[in-house]
């Protein structure tokens, strides 16, 4: 495990470890430029960030930020495993420990644990610019001597010190194995530990001090089941340590160990750090006076959210238009260059449509993640978690669930993945299960279509607010309300657990760094593309097949009737279009998808939907927004119909029930449809990601069952209550 020398000839690999909020990722971005590869740790679902240090042969691995190597969340487990080669990879040659110069004391705790691993460590003393500003001076040489590792002052955001850091890393690799850094244990304790190390080594286990301490302090059952041989060796030592006369007050060895580490750190910090100017009132505290104020803080937050959503949805519009036009243009090119036939149809209606379905959301998703990244980079997000903690506690969650849920407004998939930072397994699971109820971007086309069709001519409410806008807002709130209700229910029944402790660092406020914000935005958006892309694409092709086959031609008799009633000249352009659209509708009705739509009609009729909407619903299981183009085909206006399409709206409104002669698509049906879409689980990509994140099929199935059940019941209630109240 230890002792990798250059002579072995494998790559030079470096790991980047450190507390959260130390600028570790900024350092990673600065060292690698923008060419970092994002992938998965083998066998695990946490993302890894791997890159090449610019202009060198060094591969650098960015580990998730953690306060300790004792893992409490899935993210921290990764850091531990990567450093101790449990992931089956060769452990890194050198570890760069990123430390916040303003916060040396707590940061050195992790560094001490890293030093116990027996591998070369280089300390990057980051955020030196902030330290200088605050009048904090650090004696770098003294720190180097005291910690036994090279210390390099850096400012990741400006690039200061990076070259020296890389040089120090190279030197560290070629120097002899570093001397072991012991925490300040008592003589007796130290003897027992040394004996345990020796025993483990004799048994062939080759354990570092760090790993031995881990075996001696970790949960007994865990060690017994995972490392039975090691357990046999250390069991005796564990007993000895527990029975040792305690320094007062009494505490298990694991606690004494933590104290012992800090006992080593405290004198170092006292010697090395100097406050050259008296610290005035910190800017961070003055900002917090406002932003965490019960009234002003909440107001600011509401305002920020309102601006955020307004901006995202308004600014995304022109970009969405661009994407749509591009897709139409490509479709047109294919239409004119390829011969008529299955291949052309497959490409245009399957592939291009599928790609369009994915790309059309990119503008909104990029913008929302940009905004979230800015909020996080400034340090404001942790304050938001504080503000919302009280509300979240009412349903059994904590403020930490906020960012995953906020991200889900763009797309639930990155939101669900963001839940990895939640320590409590049950809270994490509940957050994942309710994330899809946050109305994602894909639902908007549905809302837009319905509003445009049935509410665009409504009177403004209170003379100012548009009825449509109010209804969309209501739909968003419906989703949020249901999510909280469902969370409450889960936490009281299936996923009962005592409220998780809420211990959270509040980083100092800082100016957001544009590069880091953009990298973060792109990282999360990329997840959306790579996770949903293949699935949506595949489903779009399948859906196309379901809607295209079996091929049924419009009977000649129908064609003739159509021409007669429309009174158009048989060879005119309008007649041709009319016939083509009617033929498309007929084909759709007789296709597999159409048959399915008619089959489910009994189930959806109580919700106010007919078989045409049924086909739309089937289509929307590929991707929610596919409802619009499917409805376009069903109502005979062509599949290029968009949600703003006036023709489609008119077709919807003109649709009349053959028996009662009443319009089928009424405002009530529209609301029922929207309610259904708010709550239903239709996105198979989300299901796939939940499967991966929870490592089983149980929870995805629970999610599908509860969400679709809820959607049906609520749409049913909406429609039936509406009927009772006299609407049609």
């Amino acid at each position: 495990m230890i002792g990798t020398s250059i002579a072995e000839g494998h790559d030079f690999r470096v790991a980047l470890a450190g507390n959260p909020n130390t600028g570790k990722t900024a350092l990673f971005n600065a060292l690698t430029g923008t060419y970092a590869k994002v992938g998965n740790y083998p066998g695990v679902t946490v993302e890894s960030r791997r890159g090449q240090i610019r202009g060198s042969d060094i591969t650098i691995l960015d580990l998730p930020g953690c306060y300790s190597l004792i893992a409490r969340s899935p993210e921290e487990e990764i850091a531990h495993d990567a450093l101790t080669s449990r992931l089956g990879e060769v452990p890194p040659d050198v570890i760069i420990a990123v430390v916040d110069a303003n916060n040396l004391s707590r940061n050195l705790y992790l560094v001490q644990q890293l030093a116990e691993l027996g591998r070369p460590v280089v300390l990057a003393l980051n955020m030196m610019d902030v330290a200088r500003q605050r009048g904090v001076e650090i004696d770098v040489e003294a720190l180097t001597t005291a910690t036994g590792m090279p210390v390099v002052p850096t400012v990741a955001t400006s690039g200061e010190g990076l070259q020296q850091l890389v040089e120090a890393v190279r030197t560290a690799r070629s120097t002899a194995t570093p001397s072991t850094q012991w925490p300040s244990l008592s003589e007796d304790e130290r003897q027992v530990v040394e004996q345990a190390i020796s025993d483990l080594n004799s048994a062939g286990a080759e354990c570092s001090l760090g790993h031995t301490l881990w075996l001696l302090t970790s949960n007994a059952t865990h060690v017994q089941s995972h490392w039975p041989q090691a357990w046999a060796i250390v069991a005796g030592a564990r007993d000895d340590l527990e029975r040792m006369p305690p320094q007062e007050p009494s505490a298990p060895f694991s606690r004494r160990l933590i104290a012992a580490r800090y006992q080593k750190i405290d004198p170092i910090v006292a010697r090395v750090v100097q406050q050259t100017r008296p610290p005035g009132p910190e800017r961070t505290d003055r900002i917090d006076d406002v932003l965490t104020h019960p009234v002003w803080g909440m107001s600011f937050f509401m305002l920020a959210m309102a601006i955020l959503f307004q901006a995202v949805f308004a600014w995304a519009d022109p970009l969405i238009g661009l994407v749509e036009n591009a897709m139409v243009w490509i479709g047109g090119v294919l239409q004119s260059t390829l011969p008529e036939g299955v291949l052309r149809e497959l490409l245009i209606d399957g592939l291009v449509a599928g790609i369009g379905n994915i790309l059309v959301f990119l503008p909104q998703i990029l913008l929302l993640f940009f905004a979230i990244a800015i909020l996080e980079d400034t340090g404001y997000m942790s304050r938001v978690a504080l503000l919302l903690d009280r509300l979240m506690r009412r349903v059994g969650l904590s403020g930490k669930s906020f960012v995953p849920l906020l991200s889900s407004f763009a797309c639930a998939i990155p939101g669900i993945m963001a839940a990895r930072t939640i320590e409590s397994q049950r809270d994490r699971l509940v957050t994942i299960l309710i994330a899809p109820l946050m109305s994602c971007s894909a639902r908007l086309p549905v809302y837009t279509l319905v509003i445009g069709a049935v509410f665009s001519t409504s009177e403004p409410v209170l003379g100012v607010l548009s009825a449509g806008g109010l209804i969309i807002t209501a739909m968003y709130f419906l989703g949020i309300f249901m999510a909280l209700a469902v969370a409450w229910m889960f936490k009281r029944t299936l996923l009962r657990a005592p409220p998780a402790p809420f211990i959270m660092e509040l980083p100092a406020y800082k100016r957001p760094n544009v590069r880091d914000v953009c990298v973060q935005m792109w990282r999360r958006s990329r997840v959306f593309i790579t996770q949903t892309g293949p699935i949506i694409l595949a489903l779009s092709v399948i859906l196309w097949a379901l809607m295209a086959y079996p091929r049924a031609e419009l009977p000649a008799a129908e064609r003739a009737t159509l021409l007669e009633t429309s009174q158009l000249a048989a060879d005119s352009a309008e007649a041709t279009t009319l016939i083509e659209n009617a033929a498309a509708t007929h084909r759709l009705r007789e296709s597999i998808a159409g048959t399915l739509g008619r089959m489910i009609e009994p189930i959806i009729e109580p919700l106010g939907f007919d078989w045409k909407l049924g086909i739309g619903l089937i289509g929307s299981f590929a991707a929610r927004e596919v409802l619009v183009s499917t409805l376009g085909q069903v109502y005979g206006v062509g599949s290029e119909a968009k949600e703003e399409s006036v023709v489609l709206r008119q077709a919807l409104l003109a649709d009349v029930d053959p028996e009662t002669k009443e319009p089928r698509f009424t405002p009530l049906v529209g609301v029922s449809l929207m309610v259904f879409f708010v709550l239903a689980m239709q996105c198979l990509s989300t299901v796939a990601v939940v499967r991966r994140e929870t490592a089983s099929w149980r929870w995805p199935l629970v999610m599908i069952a509860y969400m679709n059940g809820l959607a049906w019941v609520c749409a049913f209630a909406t429609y039936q209550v509406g009927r009772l109240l006299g609407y049609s």
Partner: protein
Amino acid sequence: MTLADQPLGCDALIAHVHADGPLGDRLMEMGLTPGTKVQILRQSAGGGLLQILIRGYRLSLRRSDAATIELCP
């Protein structure tokens, strides 16, 4: 006297962390060790959350968790 009872803005020394299991471990790893200076900076509207100054940085925790931290007299 526990951290939960400590008035705002006054320094105190930590005597012992009574919390069981992972909570107590976590509190100590975050720097709340016996003999360390701690101060409450502010509290939330309902009083449920506290923001403390410890080892030079700001940490927020619930009042119920703070109640497990005994202070020196």
